[in-house]
């Protein structure tokens, strides 16, 4: 039987994962809540909610609006801060024995570097995912993810601050994502993750006002999948480092499409809200697909559509 020889293992640079299915930052909290629904140690990795040096309150409510096959959020990077994460949340994830990827951000280049250094010096964190792309902050901030010169500087500063595998999460709100991916690779990133949410808005026609208190939010979910897939495709053409693909994945078929476009691994975000155990269904579906197709390793899928 072919079944025995199937392996789901993937390497994201130095980071070795037992399977390619992880969670997208901001949609899985710090893992605890989902442990009530399934054995989260089965995940390739848990990517936690974006952290900053100090706790953040985030944006005003309402923060969520559903749109056609998608949703807008303007959480505004609310988080408990790195110290509280290390003290109160990380021990749980360590106990579960699931690889932990910490998503983080800062307001300035020194803040990014300090956050990376602090996280890098903490036991039990397997990789860092640097968010340079969240569209929710006020003017002047998203420049980290959209101006290649600044992007390069901030990544180099973080690269110097930590030896952990460094994943750079790209913003889709740029004209040339391939260029941004190349910029990240050249600045020392070990991997790329793409995509973060697309900026968008919704208006209430009765009140004549934007539905989100923050006016603008980030669009996620199945609605963005074709856009995300194309962006992963472009990143694959421009870099050699591994890509973690995400954006609207809700089925194994979606995940496989991302791999064929060039992703080594995938992350599931909004899908967790629809079905808290969706990652396990996707994992199972990928395995079945490999069995059906007589594929023994995910390497046989990666970038095959090119």
């Amino acid at each position, binding site marked *: 039987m072919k079944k025995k020889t199937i392996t789901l293992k993937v390497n994201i640079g130095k980071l070795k994962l037992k399977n390619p299915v992880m969670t997208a930052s901001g949609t899985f909290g710090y893992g605890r809540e989902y442990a009530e629904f399934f054995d989260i140690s089965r995940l390739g990795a848990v990517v936690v909610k974006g952290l900053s040096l100090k706790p953040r309150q985030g944006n005003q409510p309402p923060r*969520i609006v559903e749109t056609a096959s998608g949703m807008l959020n303007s*959480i505004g990077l609310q988080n408990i801060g790195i110290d509280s994460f290390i003290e109160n949340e990380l021990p749980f994830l360590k106990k579960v024995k699931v690889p932990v990827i910490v998503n983080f951000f800062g307001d300035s280049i020194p803040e990014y570097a300090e956050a990376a250094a602090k996280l890098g010096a903490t036991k039990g964190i397997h990789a860092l995912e640097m968010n340079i792309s969240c569209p929710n902050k006020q003017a002047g901030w998203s420049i980290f993810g959209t101006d290649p010169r600044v992007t390069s500087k901030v990544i180099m500063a973080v690269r110097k601050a930590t030896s952990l595998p460094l994943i750079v999460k790209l913003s889709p709100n740029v004209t040339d994502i391939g260029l941004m991916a190349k910029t990240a690779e050249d600045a020392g990133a070990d991997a790329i993750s793409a995509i973060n949410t697309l900026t968008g808005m919704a208006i209430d026609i009765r009140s004549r006002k934007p539905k989100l208190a923050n006016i603008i939010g980030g669009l996620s979910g199945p609605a963005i999948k074709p856009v995300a897939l194309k962006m992963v495709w472009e990143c694959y053409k421009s870099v050699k480092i591994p890509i973690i693909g995400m954006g609207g994945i809700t089925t194994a078929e979606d995940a496989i499409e991302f791999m064929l476009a060039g992703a080594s691994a995938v992350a599931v975000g909004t899908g967790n*809200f629809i079905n808290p155990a969706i990652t396990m269904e996707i994992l*199972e579906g990928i395995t079945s697909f490999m069995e059906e197709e007589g594929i023994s390793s995910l390497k046989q899928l990666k970038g095959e559509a090119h």
Partner: protein
Amino acid sequence: MRSWKYVLSKLFKAVVTENKRLIKDHYLLTLSPLKKIKKNRPGNFFMISVESGLDPLLKRPFSLHRSTKNGFQILYRVVGKGTTILSNKTPGDILDVIGPLGNTFPVNNKHRNILVAGGLGIAPIFGLADSIVNSPGLEQPLLFYGARTGKEVLCKKNLADISIRPVIATDDGTAGKKGNIVKVLEKFLKSGSINVNEYSIYACGPKPMLKALSALTNKLGIKGYAALEQSMACGIGTCLGCVVHTTRGLKCVCKEGPVFPLNEIVW
């Protein structure tokens, strides 16, 4: 064979056993879970998928109205896409559900409990009344119930069955007193014969009503709690989408609520 298991049963499928139109756009949905679910109590809510496809995408939150022998009931009003689809479900249809979620009304065993419902706020408040009535040793609660019009006063028979005679107020005066239920409650509380330290208030209803109620309870120094609503995505405390302002900062309605002390809510 499945190679993994759901650890607990907060995620389940439920079969629609009844979906009855009560009046106009108000429906009573009876669900029977296909497996044993966790015990649910008044204040808890469920996230229900109205469709297995991708539009509408997110589950919709609904309060537990009442536990039944084989499951539970939801009382809902059709307001948009999701609830319209829900209103077309028929017995035998199967829905994906998460729950019970959220906290519960912290009923005070020593106090006389006053329940306040506005409109569809009766959905969880009826369940609370039912559970208080069925708790040995607790005094019969008082119910103040406001609605837009007499036709929209729901649960009349069920309330009578548990011997609760609500004080009613309607905007147009077609049932009970004409006007605002919080004003009616204020009159009662200020009637002189009452020691406010012996009363606790539990409420659910539209925001303006709850806001007026919290102003009243804060003024009189009465302990009170209200179940709040906010747009939700996950329902379990991970997306941070459902926050409301409280004196202790922003709190998630789904996890730290939906029931909050009236004196902690910042309107």
